[in-house]
């Protein structure tokens, strides 16, 4: 069989129409033809759609005006900092009275991630609540398995955010006292996407309202929608100068690469923070901003825009893809091209993927080693946090010892201190970042604040 241009056709594809013909380019020609689209997803490329994108918050304010919803506002008491997003819109980032919306992957697997964040908040005297009345956002499961749907995602989102709104009451504070701060990038992207659909669909609102009514999770009989959905990396970003002011460790010799999380800036991209003073305002500002403020050398690399390979389903059941992508497209490039000392991320799945998949690179004939941690973990180290008691680096599979040597941290001594501390833990005397009684705000185990000794 021959084709219209007399080239042999060895394979047929569906979905292209019968007129489709293979280009039969050599690999070099194919690379030349497509390189321009592989390069980057920069601000300029996304600005092409600006005129067609609405600010969904306009819809939100109108719905509140119409009496349809109640908006959980970022109040002055939350001491907001203003930032600019992709299209130059303003976003309010609360800096005080924060309710921690934890990440299942971080808490289960990289506990130094949330601990470092809370430790920084203690250092900066930020009031917060970390409690047990929170579920996973369920979006990791949804994106991996397809089990779930828009209604379930929306109901979980509004349930958790309603709890953030009322949580202060357990401590004698009014509704809205705390504002939710989302730790996970996927929760952050998913909640923003779901908020858009909720604001645009009366049908979805009605359905979810019935469910939340059943749970007793309405405010004045209405759905509660947050004014802003805020990721912890955004809090870290606006606090970067205050954090840098407390820095104890010189980081100027560290070459840092940043891995930006897809669900932080590719989902609902108009809400991601861009800053003209950071990477020319052409790339996501968070993480790079704090690392620059701490004095590290942030090194660019050619696969900055690539995902990590987590895949949601793949990390659980098809890790051949995950580890191949993580090693070939991220770790190898950061090591061989950028000569990095560390890779910094701001999301659960990315840190897990990039950190855990290095050991297997030995099977490919070349062992690659690159410390991987979250921006807040590095910031805590720079501010003098204990690398094991606080930053909990023993949970990381990647080799962090060389980085600590470079930072002048005596990790051997610190590790010995931590091992001694474990004896204290075994004796039932663990140290905590806050009063453990605060973590239960209702139900079994809750003690009213006035009854606490």
């Amino acid at each position, binding site marked *: 069989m021959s084709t219209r241009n007399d080239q042999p056709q060895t394979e*047929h594809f569906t979905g292209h129409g019968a007129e489709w013909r293979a280009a039969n380019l050599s690999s070099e020609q194919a690379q030349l033809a497509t390189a321009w689209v592989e390069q980057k997803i920069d601000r300029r490329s996304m600005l092409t759609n600006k005129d067609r994108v609405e600010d969904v918050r306009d819809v939100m304010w109108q719905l509140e005006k119409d009496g349809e919803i109640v908006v959980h506002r970022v109040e002055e008491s939350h001491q907001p900092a203003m930032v600019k997003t992709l299209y130059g819109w303003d976003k309010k980032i609360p800096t005080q009275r924060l309710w921690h919306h934890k990440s*299942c992957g971080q808490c289960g697997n990289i506990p130094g991630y949330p601990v470092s964040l809370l430790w920084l908040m203690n250092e900066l005297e930020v009031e917060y609540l970390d409690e047990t009345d929170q579920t996973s956002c369920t979006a990791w*499961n949804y994106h991996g398995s397809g089990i779930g749907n828009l209604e379930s995602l929306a109901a979980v989102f509004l349930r958790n955010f309603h*709890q953030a709104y009322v949580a202060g009451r357990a401590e004698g504070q009014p509704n809205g006292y705390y504002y939710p701060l989302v730790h996970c990038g996927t929760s952050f992207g998913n909640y923003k996407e779901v908020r858009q659909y909720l604001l645009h669909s009366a049908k979805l609102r009605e359905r979810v309202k019935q469910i939340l009514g059943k749970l007793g999770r309405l405010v004045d009989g209405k759905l509660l929608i947050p004014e802003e959905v805020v990721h912890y990396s955004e809090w870290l970003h606006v606090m970067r100068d205050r954090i840098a002011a407390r820095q104890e460790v010189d980081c100027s010799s560290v070459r840092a690469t940043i891995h930006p999380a897809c*669900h932080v800036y590719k989902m609902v991209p108009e809400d991601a923070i861009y800053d003209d003073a950071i990477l020319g305002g052409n790339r996501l500002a968070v993480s790079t901003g704090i690392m620059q403020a701490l004095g590290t050398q942030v090194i660019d690399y050619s696969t900055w825009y690539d995902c990590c390979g987590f895949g949601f389903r793949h990390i659980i059941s098809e890790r051949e893809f995950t580890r191949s992508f993580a090693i070939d497209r991220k770790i190898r490039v950061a090591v061989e091209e950028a000569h990095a000392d560390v890779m910094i991320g701001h999301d659960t799945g990315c840190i897990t993927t990039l950190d855990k998949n290095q050991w297997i690179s030995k099977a490919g004939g070349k062992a690659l080693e690159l410390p991987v941690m979250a921006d807040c973990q590095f910031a805590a180290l720079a501010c003098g946090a204990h690398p094991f008691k606080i930053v909990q680096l023993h949970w990381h599979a990647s080799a962090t010892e060389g980085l600590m040597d470079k930072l002048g941290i005596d990790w051997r001594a610190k590790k010995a201190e931590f091992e001694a501390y474990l004896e204290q833990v075994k004796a039932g005397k663990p*140290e905590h970042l806050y009063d453990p009684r605060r973590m239960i705000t209702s139900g079994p185990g809750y003690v009213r604040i006035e009854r606490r000794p």
Partner: protein
Amino acid sequence: MTHATATRFETHIGDPVSDVPAVPRSELEEIFKDIQSDQRYDHELNGCLNCGICTATCPAAHYYDFSPREIVQLLWTENLEGIYDAMQEKIWACAQCYTCAARCPFGNSPGGLIMLMRETAIKHGMESAKSVLRPFSRVMLKLISTGNQLAPDMITADHFPDWGPNISKVNAPLKVLRQAIPMPTLNTTVTAWEVNLKTSIELYTIWEETGVLKQLETIDENLFDVIVDFMDEKREDWKDWLADQEDKDED
């Protein structure tokens, strides 16, 4: 002009020289209708000129026979046979990074469309969904019965041998290491953080009300039964606690 004489999907849809039974047209239409009737469909699909930016930036396209451009084209041209074929395997290759959505000049979200197709594959109890999701059982059990997707006791060297020996660099029992985390909510081994009983019951109510349990039953009936038994017990515990409170109030 020469036309294609055989395609891969025909082995699924009804190959005249194969014993595989043909899929009735009505079923193909029903599957497409389920995808198309999702309220997100028109938001995620706006048009397509086959530019291929989505596929050029797609991580899964590096390693699988998968192209987000192809998925968009199948839906845009309402190629029912091709859609059915893609749901047998290809839709499970997507890594859900949404790089395609960030790049598409039409504002399409191939990653978002994939999710509608995955949900539909589950609704129709497709074998592809059942086999792909079999390794997910442990995660589903944990998530639906506790409210947490991932727990420390799931991260063991047995389950992740390719992660190497450094699951923890400090040699101590998991329970002790977890108690040494200075966030009290994290001093657990069976969930990522301690979840309030009331909270997990609220989440379970959401699963029931939104049809998620029905999805689960379609895919894995045994797992569904285990979860229902488990949650019935939790609900009893919650009722008992509420009754205790009433007794205390009366006292």
